[in-house]
């Protein structure tokens, strides 16, 4: 392949996922499976399942969809499930994915609520929860590393991407500023720069 053809192939790989959900049941069970694996947050599992295992989305699409669900009110992964379901099967798909994400996990969490009072103070239980908490932190950090690769191909370019990523991390992670203000301050500047760089 010529260099140009390789570049086109790379660009195609960024926009065309390898597979699509087969049915509403496929959506429901994929999201149920994902949700039930999500201890301390579902995002890391969502990336693994949707991009790597099922291949319904490319990494680029995952970052794009996540970015949009991030700035909308509501739980990110719930918004993500609605968007993916809607893209493939319309409203029925959106609600199948949403039901998968919430229904069975809701029953599990209420069952745990009923048992919690008896076991909460047991040292082995609290130890296990601490260990799982540390792992869920590692899962999110690993997801960030994997998705950061997509920025190399984006219109923002590496230096600007690193700058905006770092400022966001410092503001939210270190200074603990409220997310809404950080998004309102950085978002418009970043979007304006991307707009400028996408000049036809």
């Amino acid at each position, binding site marked *: 392949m010529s260099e140009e053809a390789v570049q086109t192939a790379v660009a195609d790989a960024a926009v065309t996922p390898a597979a699509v959900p087969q049915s509403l049941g496929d959506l429901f069970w994929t999201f149920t499976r994902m949700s039930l694996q999500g201890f301390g947050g579902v995002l*890391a599992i969502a990336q693994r399942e949707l991009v790597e295992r099922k291949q319904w989305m490319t990494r680029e699409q995952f970052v794009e969809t996540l970015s949009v669900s991030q700035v909308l009110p509501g739980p990110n992964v719930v918004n993500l499930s609605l968007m993916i379901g809607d893209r493939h099967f319309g409203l029925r798909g959106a609600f199948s994915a949403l039901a998968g994400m919430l229904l069975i996990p809701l029953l599990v969490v209420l069952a745990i609520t009923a048992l919690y009072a008896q076991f909460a103070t047991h040292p082995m239980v609290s130890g296990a929860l601490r260990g799982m908490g540390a792992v869920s932190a590692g899962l999110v950090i690993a997801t960030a590393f994997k998705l950061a690769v997509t920025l190399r191909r984006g219109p923002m370019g590496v230096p600007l991407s690193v700058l905006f990523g770092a400022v966001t991390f410092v503001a939210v992670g270190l200074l603990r500023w409220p997310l809404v203000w950080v998004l309102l301050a950085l978002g418009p500047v970043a979007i304006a720069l991307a707009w400028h760089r996408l000049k036809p």
Partner: protein
Amino acid sequence: MTAWFTTHSWADIGSLFGHFLMLSFLAIGGAITTTPEMSRYLVTERGWLSPPEFTASIAIAQAAPGPNVLFVAVLGWNVAGVMGAAAAMAGILIPSTALSLWATRWGQARKETRGVRAFTAGLAPITIGLLIATGWILSGPAAGHVGSMALVLGTVVMMVRTKLSPMWAVAAGAVAGALGFA
């Protein structure tokens, strides 16, 4: 805590629903960002939950699998059983669900336009920065503890380098923690 069925009036259930309906619009970054307001309403204003009950409700949902938003169902359950859980979850989900569906359709129809491409491309690095910040905040309790920090680091390496299911890391974390290593 609470029984299956509630002794609360329909007016109380209605106001629980209404309050979470309003909070849904403010929940940018997830329902967890509105916990200070939930605590003000449920604990201080209404007196439906004690402060330890409120904190325990969130801790339970964090320990269970599934999206973090399920803590809203646990809060509702602890206020008023099944009806409370249903009212709180419906309230927190209906506005944000409607808004996301509308926004995703609007965006999909215009995804090749310069405006929509600039929107998602501009936000992408901020999204990655937020993910790192989330990982950082979540690893806060592990700081200074060798076993816990090894779990965080080991998980990152395993996820980046191998195709193993994350469930193995979660199971290893639970066992290590139960044995007193975390």
